[in-house]
């Protein structure tokens, strides 16, 4: 539990949302995002309702709003260009606070911002209530290609090992009086990156050797096959179903 893969994104808790099997939650979030994307952008109130739905899930999961909002900042670099759209898009124009803006550009920006934010918020909630390890098992159960799941799980296992190796290389550089100042030193950094790549590659070969030595033949044995009950699926489906209702209202009203 506590000592598992307590990744920074994960927030330990005992809420009904935490208790749902990972694959139910994954499927629910995926459907929710699809429905949000399918909601017409002109139905502004529909997005507010979607946000209320997410807030309800967050409340059930006992994830504080501050935690969620801080995590949402990850979105900023991705939506930065949405801000530009009202300035560069063509078509009829309007004036807001003395700025000359394109109407279709404004709608476009709103579209990206609203849908992006809701999608990221849903993912942040998923990550906050599901352990990384469980997420991978969930993907495996949802019949994601096993090779991709393996790659992801090795990334998690060896991320720290490689970061540590990088740190040691940095300390070795510093100990010999090297400090990167400006472009002229990029060569050294590039060579370090190359060395790190070779080392990681060789480690990969050693790991593979160790796996083969223990009978690995290309597939990871699926250890605990937890299945979800009908009630659990129903609970997980509550979010996408509610969102679907909102979406349909958005199209008909």
């Amino acid at each position, binding site marked *: *539990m506590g*000592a*598992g*893969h307590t990744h920074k994104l994960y927030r330990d808790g005992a809420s009904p949302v935490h208790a749902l099997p990972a694959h139910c939650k994954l499927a629910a979030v995926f459907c929710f995002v699809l429905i949000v994307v399918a909601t017409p952008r002109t139905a502004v109130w529909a997005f507010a309702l979607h946000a209320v739905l997410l807030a309800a899930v967050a409340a059930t999961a006992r994830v504080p709003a501050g935690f969620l909002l801080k995590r949402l900042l990850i979105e900023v670099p991705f939506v930065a260009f949405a801000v530009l759209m009202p300035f560069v898009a063509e078509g009829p124009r309007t004036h807001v606070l003395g700025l000359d803006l394109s109407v279709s550009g404004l709608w476009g920006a709103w579209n990206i911002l609203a849908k992006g934010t809701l999608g990221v918020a849903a993912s942040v909630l998923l990550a906050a209530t599901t352990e990384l*390890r469980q997420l*991978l098992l969930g993907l495996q159960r949802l019949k994601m290609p096993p090779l991709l799941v393996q790659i992801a*799980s*090795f990334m*998690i*296992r*060896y991320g*720290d*090992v490689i970061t540590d190796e990088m740190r040691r290389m940095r300390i070795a550089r510093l100990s010999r009086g090297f400090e990167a100042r400006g472009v002229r030193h990029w060569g050294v950094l590039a060579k370090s990156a190359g060395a790190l790549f070779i080392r990681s590659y060789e*480690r990969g070969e*050693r*790991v593979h*050797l*160790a*796996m*083969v*030595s*223990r*009978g*690995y*033949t290309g597939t990871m*044995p699926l*250890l605990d096959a937890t299945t979800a009950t009908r009630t659990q699926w129903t609970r997980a489906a509550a979010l996408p179903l509610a969102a679907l209702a909102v979406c349909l209202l958005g199209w008909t009203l």
Partner: protein
Amino acid sequence: MSTTAPAPSLAVAGLAYAYPDGHQALFGVDLTLRRGERVALLGPNGAGKTTLVLHLNGILEAGAGSVTVAGLPVAKAHLAEIRRRVGIVFQDPDDQLFMPTVREDVAFGPAAAGLRGAELDARVTEALDRVGMTAFADRPPHHLSFGQRRRVAVATVLAMRPEILVLDEPSSNLDPASRRELADILRSLDVTVLMVTHDLPYALELCPRSVVLSGGVIVADGTTQELLCDEELMRGHRLELPFGFDPRSVTLPG
């Protein structure tokens, strides 16, 4: 050997091997390990120790000669069974422990062999219990100390109930306490052990018998104490005792 004796845990006969680039590493190695023996494989760097180890579970294919594990020849047809019988513990536990948690890592070998459910759980608990790491089953391996990781690495192969345990430099990077703990664990196991090491006092402590591999052949095979006291042999094959260590002064238990 009489015909009624059990097949030796490991029988290597006339094993020769050259790497694809033409570099020949082994020139006819003969080595037999009786069941339950603990044997140290000594030799300078580049003597071919790792190459020999990789033949034991069929990672490398013999150029000439044969390897037999408890009567079963190492061959393509039954590699899975050979890899279950030969448990190799590699030098760097970070290479050996590749699963997200200790439990899953220990379960990997038996699960690959088809074990599931309660039987698998029992196997994992038993293996972790033998190395005293049961309390750490749900930890990710990289959160353990180096000594603990080495012990879990031993558990990962014990879980396969191997006929022979092959350890590559088991004492490297361990502090004296972890080193002793590992020695206690190895002594408590009733499996055949082949231990590749440069740590001569450790070999003396754990292995009644040693063999010296040098230049791709076995150049000496005898009791560890005798070999370590043979100054000419030691000098001839770049084997050196730590400063102040006199193997003659050590009284070995029974």
